[in-house]
């Protein structure tokens, strides 16, 4: 027997996920921006209690004219800053929940197709392709128009159009793992399918899924904004897209009415994209282990 061997100590332990994330300046910017948006949303009922749709001020005041309205008021006298902070809640919430719906459907279908193969895979992939051939925004429009716009229907519609891409991604990753030694070793020790998928396959496809998820949230926010812009948003809540839509009429004279919420949309989507990029690198196990 060789006796105890020492483990090579010079191979560095990979730093924690957060540490790796922070190393990238773009990810830091993304996180900061997202924090700002989320913070605004969370603080909305405190900063601007009451309904942001209340007409409380003189209409079309420019930002800075009245200290009570730092971002000015729209054509109906509504506080734009209130609208943006409350809108942040709505946008982020819709984005997150819609993405969750897409994740549940997409990961389920993708993993099932990838792992079981054969007829199961064929059927699931035809279903996926069917959904993919329908132009996503039109599909969303149709669902929302038919079911009457409200937050639940919007979430459902966005979720139903977002899952096919995710399903294909998950299927590809599962296929890659399924034929590899990791799964073979698990089969050899007698693990059940559920155990293999749940404990070994899914955690290892987590990385690309998380990155996709961040992009999906961004897309959901954009889609919701587009729906609201077109007047198909939930009429009872304030939404960035709705605000941009409302500001359309006065865009040549009081462009700030549309620009402020527009910038908010840009900020949120940019933040999520940067974060997704950073997560992609941070979660890349091979890079971390170098």
């Amino acid at each position, binding site marked *: 027997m060789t006796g105890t*061997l020492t483990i090579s100590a*010079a191979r560095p332990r990979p730093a924690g996920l957060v540490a790796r994330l922070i190393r990238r300046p773009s990810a830091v910017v993304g996180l900061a921006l997202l924090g700002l948006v989320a913070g605004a949303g969370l603080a909305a009922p405190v900063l601007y209690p009451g309904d942001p749709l209340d007409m409380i001020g003189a209409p079309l005041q420019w930002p800075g004219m009245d200290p009570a309205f730092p971002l000015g008021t729209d054509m109906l006298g509504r506080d734009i800053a209130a609208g943006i902070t409350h809108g942040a809640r709505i946008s982020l919430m819709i984005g997150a929940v819609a993405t969750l719906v897409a994740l549940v459907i997409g990961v389920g279908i993708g993993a099932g197709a990838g792992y079981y193969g054969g007829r199961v895979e064929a059927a699931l992939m035809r279903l996926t392709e069917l959904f993919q051939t329908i132009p996503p925004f039109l599909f969303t429009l149709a669902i929302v128009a038919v079911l009457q716009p409200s937050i639940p229907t919007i979430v459902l519609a966005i979720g139903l159009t977002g899952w096919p891409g995710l399903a294909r991604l998950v299927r590809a990753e599962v296929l890659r793992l399924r034929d590899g030694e990791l799964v073979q070793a698990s089969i050899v020790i007698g693990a059940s399918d559920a155990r293999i998928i749940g404990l070994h396959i899914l955690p290892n496809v987590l990385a690309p899924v998380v990155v996709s998820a961040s992009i999906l949230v961004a897309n959901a926010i954009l889609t919701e904004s587009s729906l609201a812009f077109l007047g198909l948003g939930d009429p009872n809540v304030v939404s960035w897209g709705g605000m941009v839509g409302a500001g359309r009429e006065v865009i040549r004279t009081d462009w700030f009415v549309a620009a402020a919420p527009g910038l908010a949309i840009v900020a949120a989507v940019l933040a999520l994209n940067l974060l997704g990029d950073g997560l992609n690198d941070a979660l890349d196990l091979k890079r971390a282990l170098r």
Partner: protein
Amino acid sequence: MSAETRTGAPVLEVDDLRISFRERAAERAAVHGLGFSVEAGETLAIVGESGCGKSLTAFALLGLLPGNARASGRVRLEGRDILGLEGEAMRRLRGTRIAMIFQEPMTALNPVLTIGAQIVEAIREHEAVSAADARTRTLSLLARVRIPDPERRFGEYPHRLSGGMRQRVVIAMALACAPAVLVADEPTTALDVTVQAEILDLIDDLRRETGMAVVLITHDLGLVAEHADRVLVMYAGRAVEAGSAAALFAAPRHPYTRALVAARPRPGSALRQRLVEIPGQVPPLGAMPPGCAFAPRCPAAEAPCRETPPPLQSVGTAAERVACLRWKDLRAPDQSPVRLGA
């Protein structure tokens, strides 16, 4: 680390070669003061396990080190110092005076060009010959590397050839301009054993025909025994033993060499015989011990061994060298010495 003194100047001389890497603001030395030489018509095998620096040395010879690596020392090819050469000057030498073949032939072959076209390109890159002449030369090269039916193979794409065939094509490309030195970095590791034997026999025959020198980089001592004239054993970036292949196997001197020779499963051994092990493993780049790099694993290491790395000294004839303070005190190996087949 002085060059060999023999009749006829060596065609390749390496003196005090040092290679280091820049990794995350730290400078790590990978090869420390390596020196050797190769004469025309002979095969020098550089043997060692993974991480010993043998491949890096090969890349340094051809000026192919990665961007974050730096090499210092002297590399003289046919009397001319080439280590500092850059760009165009080095490119002119590569392929014409010194050539290299790699472990994986597909890294050298372009998958979208026919093999004939690639060899022709290799020729016309360096010499001003007509396409027709280049083609004729290519066909004769293909025949020389024993590829059957060269006319037909000329127009084939690499993916249609087996691994052994591809390696032959790569050899043909390397030999296209009759280089003085051929560096072969693990040329047969990826091949089956029957094909491996043919490829190495082919290299031997070509060497005899053309008089070129061959530097064979390998981890396989069996190959060294059959195809090398002289051997350089490397460990953790340093040469630990150098000498003729016959002497190395008959009476290895350095403890690492002895362990390496003994660790190979030997044919004809009794059933269930334990192999001689080397406990532990090679120290990683950043954690080299101060003295002899092998000392932590060496059964014969003593205090002086751990203080400074022992120099490579001549023992016996000038050609035999060992980097060990204690080699004289070591007992004779427990197995009978190995005699190489003629």
